[in-house]
């Protein structure tokens, strides 16, 4: 049995506090860590720099990838996902393994699910939060000692002692781990990560009415014979009436075109293959997963200016049309080489068979009618606009 690792004991540091109070105290110091740019090598990048709360804890602008490092000039390789809504509900990464070999083969609906980051490589938030502290394109700290020293100088060092004990700074690794656990508590507990203040939420509560276009868009979005978006971006309330998260956390390979805005993509030998690397290392031998990335939530998607794992599209209309027309008009999305369209060009030629052809509308072939007409695409866009929370600002171009 795996452990969430959330059950660390804080009572020694605050023996009189209730569990709720102690937990909240941890979350409070976690907030300080989350927003602290001094923890980066540049001194100018915090978690919130990329995961901006004003933009649903997503990117504040339309850059396909953001840059970090000591001089903030080292580009990353993936678009920044929103942290809203999904964090407490993201299951550990898993891929069901039926004991029956036949079932393993034919259960095409059984796909990898969960984990944090586009490739699901982290099972817990404190594990995930450790990576940007040291990643070259992000906060770029040299080692744990460097982070511990910064924490010791932070204005909230006393809060760390109060919550975790006076000796928390005695061990560099220990204090960094505690700080990451605090970030995790902040992300799980703070209401700003799950406000449910969109028009769609009001509609679900019977407090708002969708416009005709929005209502039609919801229908096209959900209908398996039309957009079929709801198959992965679940839009129906939970059994307990809870509002949907617009993701089921499953992995898919939509074969998004290569994005030449990303400096790493200038190298023709470089491919970001999601589940099978290069950032994720443990599934490199499983070629079936190459090109698969986790389904993001579509909540607040209309406020973004960067879509898919590689930020290839900068308008939501482009992103929706890609689903509708990928195999009907591939020339609109993929480059030509020697006159021929290079399908699924962000996968190595040997792995282009991994492109999703199972889930509608990706089942359609050239010459088929599109799953959505132009007018229906506009309806879907109207519906998606209802998913924006009341406090979210549109991303800058």
């Amino acid at each position, binding site marked *: *049995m*795996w452990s969430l690792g959330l059950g660390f004991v804080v009572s020694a540091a605050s023996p009189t506090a209730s569990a709720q109070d102690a937990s909240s105290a941890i979350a409070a110091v976690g907030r300080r860590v989350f927003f602290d740019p001094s923890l980066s090598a540049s001194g100018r990048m915090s978690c919130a720099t990329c995961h901006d709360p004003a933009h649903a804890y997503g990117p504040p602008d339309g850059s396909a990838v953001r840059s970090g490092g000591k001089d903030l000039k080292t580009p990353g390789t993936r678009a920044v996902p929103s942290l809203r809504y999904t964090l407490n*509900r*993201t299951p*550990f990464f898993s891929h069901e393994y039926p*004991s*029956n*070999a036949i079932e393993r083969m034919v259960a095409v609906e059984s796909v990898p699910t969960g984990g944090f980051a586009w490739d699901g490589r982290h099972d817990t938030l404190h594990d995930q939060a450790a990576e940007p502290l040291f990643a070259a394109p992000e906060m770029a700290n040299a080692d744990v000692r460097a982070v511990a020293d910064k924490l010791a100088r932070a204005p909230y060092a006393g809060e760390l002692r109060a919550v975790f004990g006076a000796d928390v700074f005695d061990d560099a690794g220990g204090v960094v781990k505690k700080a990451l656990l605090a970030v995790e508590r902040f992300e799980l507990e703070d209401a700003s990560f799950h406000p449910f203040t969109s028009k769609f939420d009001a509609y679900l509560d019977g407090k708002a009415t969708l416009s005709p276009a929005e209502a039609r868009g919801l229908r096209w979005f959900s209908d398996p014979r039309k957009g079929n978006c709801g198959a992965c971006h679940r839009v129906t309330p939970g059994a307990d009436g809870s509002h949907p998260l617009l993701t089921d956390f499953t992995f898919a390979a939509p074969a998004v075109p290569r994005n030449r805005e990303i400096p790493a993509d200038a190298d023709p030998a470089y491919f970001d293959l999601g589940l099978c690397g290069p950032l994720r290392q443990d599934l490199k031998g499983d070629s079936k997963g190459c090109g698969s990335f986790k389904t993001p939530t579509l909540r607040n998607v209309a406020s973004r200016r960067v879509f898919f794992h590689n930020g290839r599209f900068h308008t939501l209309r482009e992103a929706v049309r890609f689903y509708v027309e990928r195999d009907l008009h591939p020339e609109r999305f993929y480059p030509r080489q020697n006159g021929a369209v290079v399908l699924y060009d962000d996968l190595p030629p040997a792995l282009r068979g991994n492109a999703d052809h*199972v889930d509608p509308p990706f089942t359609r072939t050239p010459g088929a009618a599109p799953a959505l007409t132009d007018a229906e695409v506009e309806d879907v866009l109207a519906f998606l606009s209802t998913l924006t929370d009341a406090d979210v600002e549109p991303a800058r171009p």
Partner: protein
Amino acid sequence: MAPLIGRAIMKTIKVGAVAGVLLACGFAGIGAERWADARPCEKEEVPAPPQIKHVFVITLENKSYDDTFGTSTQDPYLRGTLVPMGALLSQYYATGHVSLDNYISMISGQSSTLETQADCASFDDFQLTGVVANGQAVGTGCVYPKRIKALPNQLAEAGYTWRAYMEDMGNDPARESATCGHVPLDAVDVTQQPEAPSAAVPTGDQYAGRHNPFIYFHSIIDTPECDANVVNLNKLDADLGAVRTTPNFVFITPNLCDDGHDGDGTGAPGKGCVTGLPGGLTTSDAFLQTWVPKILASPAYKKDGLLIINFDESATASLTSASANGLTTITATFDGDSCCGQELGPNVTRPATSTFVVSPTLTYDLVTVGVGGDRTGAVLISKFITPGTVSSTPYNHYSLLRSIEDIFGVEHLGYAGQAGLKPFGGDVYAKRGY
């Protein structure tokens, strides 16, 4: 084919503890509210079952007899401890592939539909077009209309109690309710895949609606009985505390790991359950080791109990591969072996092929040749059974239902009423039980 309209009526007249008379009959016209039958009934003298009044069923998943009781080293408790305590039914067969149709047959005698044999990925209402011999509902879909009865209806009418204990049901309340857990009618069944642990659901949720046959009957889900009696397994401990709190019929469905559905049992990375446990027979054996002693120690079991451990279906299939025009087709074939003259029913055909398109270059064909679910074996334990009994009498899930119905003295539903079908008899129960 045009469906026959009719209704099968089978009734066991249970008298005393010594013997009964089985009346195997044909079917009367739809709407007929009589227990008699249109054709003469054959009289067959059968022994009455012992005075069992508490039946416990634990259904595990997807194992062949040769694996479970032959080659596997992962189930030492089942084979080494439980089998010697009771009766091994070495010729016990499942009634279908791939899962749900087996469970439904166990509690209703209904045969496969195109949807139930594919596990009802969508919780579709059953579209009834008629009822034919042996009470078989004709139509398509998953959730049977109210007129199609199941064992719980019979038990309730006869004054007996029942409860189904579903491990993990409601762990994630957004996924399914903790009682009578099913998705809305005609909605996609989101319980088809297990849910790994998360911050919000630290234990994960491996409940699978397709392993809970009780939710596929309007005669159950449209009544308060469903919320009252289809509950999480965590209720069982308390219910076992006294005879009066232990239902007469207990059906236990472990989660997708504990029933052996997931994981290969080796503990190898990536080959276990979504919780990290090894799964397979290893984990189902551990589940039995946890729960069977509790059941056997319960006052109700000690008084007049029977424990049945079975498997929904076998997993043995053969594989072939062929390539043509750039398309590779891998064919997996279940023999679909059956026993006991199992009938196909009105809704499916055999052999049957289901095709799963993986990519433009790869397709899987799943072929089921016969009507059955292949040989799985089963184990029965009771004070009415001589330890170490081995029976090679053929039985299947319909026999199981018939046997339970005989125990509680209610009529035979569906193919439990198939002419000539044998309930557990003197080959299973010790003579002192008669």
